[in-house]
Structure formats: C-alpha cells, structure tokens
C-alpha cells in the first residue's frame, strides 16, 4: 500500500509538462512555470490540450505514477504505462475467474453488496438528518426495496440475478435521489440519471465526479497488477473498464454522490457555473470544475476506519486497499472479497 499522495490535475489549456531532475515542471500557455517534486505525487491527470514530454512520461512510468489524459470534460483518452507494468500471473487468475460464472458471481456479490449497503446508508443518513425536508415515505420506500436486495444477497446468488439486483438497486436509489438535493434552486432539479451527455446540472456534476472516481480506481487496480478492463459484474465490452466499473459500485453513493450533494446543498457550485448547449448537453465552466477537483482532493484526505481491516486510512487510499484485497482474494489469501461498507 502506498501513502496517500497528491494527484496533480492540469486543467489549463496549452500547458506543457516536462521533467527537470526529480520535478514535474508545468509551464502554462502564458509561460509561467510551476514545479512539483515527483515523490509527493501519485498521479498526473491532464484535461484537454495539455502536452507532455516523453522524458516525463518515462519517468512517471518508472516511478509508478499514473499519467492520464482526459478530454477537457473528463472523458478518458489514454494513459502512459511503463515496460514493467503488472503481473501476468495475477492477471491470468483474474481472467480465469472472470470467465467462470460461479467464480465471477462470488466477486460480483461482494461488489453489489457494497453498492446496496452503501446506497441504503446514504438514504438512511438523509432520513436521519433531514426528516423535515424530505418526503420520508418515498425515501423509506426506497430503503425498503434496498433492504430486499440486501436480503437476497445474504445467500449465494447467480451472476444473472446479481446483475438484476444491481440494476434494481441503482434505479431505486436514483428514483429518490432528487429528495437528497435540498437546494431549492430550479437549476438543480433532478429527474433521473442521464449520461452522455448529461442534460442537467446535477448529472453534469455526477458524471464529472464519476470520471475522477473512475480514474483513481483504475490507477489503484493497475498499481496492484490487475487489469481494469476485465470485470466480474460488468460484462466485457471493447473499451470499457469493466473491473474499474465493478469496484466503483461500492464508492459511487457515499463518496461521489455525497460530494456532489454537498457542493450543491452548501451552495459551493452556482447556477451560473453551468451552460447548456444547443443540443441540451450541459457543461460546467473552468471555475466550477476547479471547485469540484479541490473538493474531491480534500475529501480523499478524510480519515476513515476501514471496516474490514479496522485500520484508520485516508479515504483516498480506500481504492488501493480494495484493489489490494481483491488481488489477495484472487490469490486465495482470503476466502472472499470484502467490499468497503460505509458506516
């Protein structure tokens, strides 16, 4: 496990990144330079038109720093990997178990158990804190459905059924998600989850935070030698990071969604930070994006007690711990995959 280090997010268009000794040098389009020592970083994420010298790429690969390129709006484009990436034996084991429906079901059950329990915990927390401001009956109803999913998962279930439960849990949870948005501003109304492109401000925020989550989860999986493409719950599809999506299921509600909710509910993002294009697609401006990135970074430094290990860790390390636990399970050091249960 590594220490929680910082991720360097480069959002200024036209920046040029290079290596100078043990430092990353970021030169802005206007010519200003900033330097960051490599040893305090665990990754560099470049949004949009950001250039990078091959020597810096090589250095990042050698030091195990993830270096990724996303579009300005956060769609994944590419990442740089060094020659010594990963561990072929572990990957083979991952592929074998992913190919075997029973083995895949065992991992998928853990992942969906995490998702169901954590979504339910988020709804319950909302009922506890804001019973005066939400439609209690509606949210209670959703909790009830999630209880049902949890009950089904208490005994071994087939992969198909697990997939069904995952879908049901997601629909139920997003079906009442608008209750959690406490802002009375019209602009933050929510009518269900829409992706590609997001058509309202809330979905725009969710999509962006999921991108950040996906990036971190993916890096964590790669760091322990797992293949982020080959999932257990998510079926293989070209270009889809199946395993990263699997592992994100545990984190979406309590980490990503709650972050978005608190940005809205505390007024840290404003209506004017969003624009709607002709097509109806919604984009956020630079400042809003920076606000989200800062909040994300900060949230990752919050200390939590890992529910399975009973060890205190910064939340940002939870991805690494989960990736490690999954690797240890595939390696047969553990008799199951313990998801991250949020309390």
């Amino acid at each position, binding site marked *: *496990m*590594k220490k929680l280090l910082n991720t360097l997010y480069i959002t200024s268009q036209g920046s040029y990144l290079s290596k100078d000794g043990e430092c990353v040098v970021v030169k802005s389009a206007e010519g200003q330079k900033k330097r960051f020592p490599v040893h305090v970083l665990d990754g560099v994420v470049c949004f949009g038109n950001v250039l990078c010298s091959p020597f810096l790429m090589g250095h990042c690969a050698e030091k*195990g720093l993830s270096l990724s390129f996303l579009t300005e709006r956060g769609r994944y484009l590419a990442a740089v990997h060094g020659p*010594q990436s*990963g*561990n072929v*034996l*572990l990957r083979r084991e991952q592929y074998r178990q992913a190919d075997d429906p029973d083995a895949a079901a065992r991992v998928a*059950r*853990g992942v969906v*158990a*995490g998702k*169901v*329990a954590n979504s339910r915990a988020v709804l319950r927390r909302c009922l506890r804190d804001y019973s005066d401001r939400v439609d209690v009956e509606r949210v209670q109803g959703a909790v009830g459905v999630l*209880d049902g999913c*949890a*009950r089904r*998962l*208490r005994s071994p279930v087939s992969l198909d059924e697990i997939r069904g439960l995952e879908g049901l849990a997601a629909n139920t949870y997003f079906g009442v998600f608008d209750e959690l948005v406490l802002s009375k501003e019209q602009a933050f109304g929510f009518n269900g989850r829409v992706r590609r492109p997001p058509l309202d401000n809330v979905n725009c925020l969710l999509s962006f935070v999921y991108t950040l989550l996906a990036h971190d989860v993916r890096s964590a999986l790669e760091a*322990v*030698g797992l293949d982020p493409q080959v999932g257990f719950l998510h079926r293989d599809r070209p270009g889809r990071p199946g395993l990263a999506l699997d592992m994100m299921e545990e984190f979406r509600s309590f980490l990503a969604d709650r972050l978005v909710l608190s940005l809205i509910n505390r007024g840290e993002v404003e209506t004017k930070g969003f624009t709607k294009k002709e097509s109806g697609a919604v984009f956020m401006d630079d400042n809003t994006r920076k606000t989200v990135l800062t909040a994300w970074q900060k949230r990752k430094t919050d200390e939590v007690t890992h*529910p*399975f*290990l009973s060890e205190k860790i910064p939340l940002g390390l939870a991805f690494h711990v989960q990736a*490690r*636990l999954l690797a*240890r*399970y595939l*390696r047969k*050091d*553990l*008799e*199951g*995959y*313990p*998801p991250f*249960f949020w309390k």
Partner: protein
Amino acid sequence: MMGEEAEILPLSALQHFLYCPRQCALIHIEKVWEENRFTAEGRILHTRVDSGDSGKRGQVSEDRAVPIRSQRLGLYGVADVLEMRPGPDGKSIPFPVEYKRGSPKIEPWDRAQLCAQAICMEEMLDVEIPEGAIFYGTPRRREKVVFNQELRELVQINCQQMHELMKNGVTPQAEYGQRCRGCSLVRACMPKLGKKQKVETYLLKGLQE
C-alpha cells in the same frame, strides 16, 4: 535446471527469501514493489559504491559494482566491492565487501547473501574465497564473515527452495511475526488478514437491515 537463463534470479531474491519466502514471492513473482524509508536509504548508501570506480589502497586493489553470477546457485547480481588481497603464494585472493544500512544482524541473512556472492566469484574466477566483510551503516563498522561449510550449505539449500518456489509461482501464505514489523512490504502483504474475521461473516453483517 538451475542456472538456465530463464531460471536465473537476482542475488537480492535470496536475501528476500531468507528474510521471508512470502516477501520473496511478492517481489519476484507478484512484482509488488514498495519504496519506503528503508529501501530508499539503502539506495542512497548504494549510489556511493555503484559508481563502478576501482582503485588501489596499498597492496589491496579494489573494484566496485562488479557483475557476478553462478550457474550452480542460479543467481546473478552485482557485488558492491571486490577487494583483491595478496595471498601467501603471491596470487591475490578476492575479498567481497557488502554495504548495508542499519546494524549487524543476528540472523544469517546478510552473511548468506555475502557468501552467495563469494560462491559466484569462486565459480567465475576458479579460486577459493575464505572470507569477506560487511560494512554496516550504524554504527559504521566492518564485520568479518567467514565462509564456512555451514554458511555455504545454508546458501545452497535456500537457493534450491527459492527456485522451487519460483517454479511453482504460488505465493506462500503470510505468517504474522516479528519480522513483519521491519518488512517493507507489510502494507501490500497484509499479513494479519488470515487472522481477520471471515469474509462471509463480514458480508452478512454489512447486509443486515
């Protein structure tokens, strides 16, 4: 099989294996790498000797960062310092010196590592090497190591077991113990996992209403 190109292992693997076979497997099979304070310090200490310079001090000539290997042990690596000392019959006798951070160990890890180096050199130079030394960082001092039969057998047996482990490619289960505290891989290894509650119990608890 030992000594074949595909099977040949770095000398450091032997030291890892002697410390803990699981550590060896994590590093050399699972390719887990962890840089912590200790390995970083070790590296800094090494940059001094890795420069590949050679020199002469009186009768003793000194070669640094000497590449070595042994077919018999199936090992290769680099010796920190190889001193050539004048022997009784005029022929010079190699005398390996290894640099270590930290203080002298009671366990035979460092000595076995040095002995393995000596065996490599014996095989390459067709000489007998009776002794060498380890230079410890704290306190800064040299410890003489005699390559006796017992130490040589320890090296031989452990090399064999290590190659066996590599061939099988199965990481041994963790056994939590004192050595885990000083282990640079402790976070990746999670040696206490075995003692944790059962995952199924944990899962059921998490799913409770």
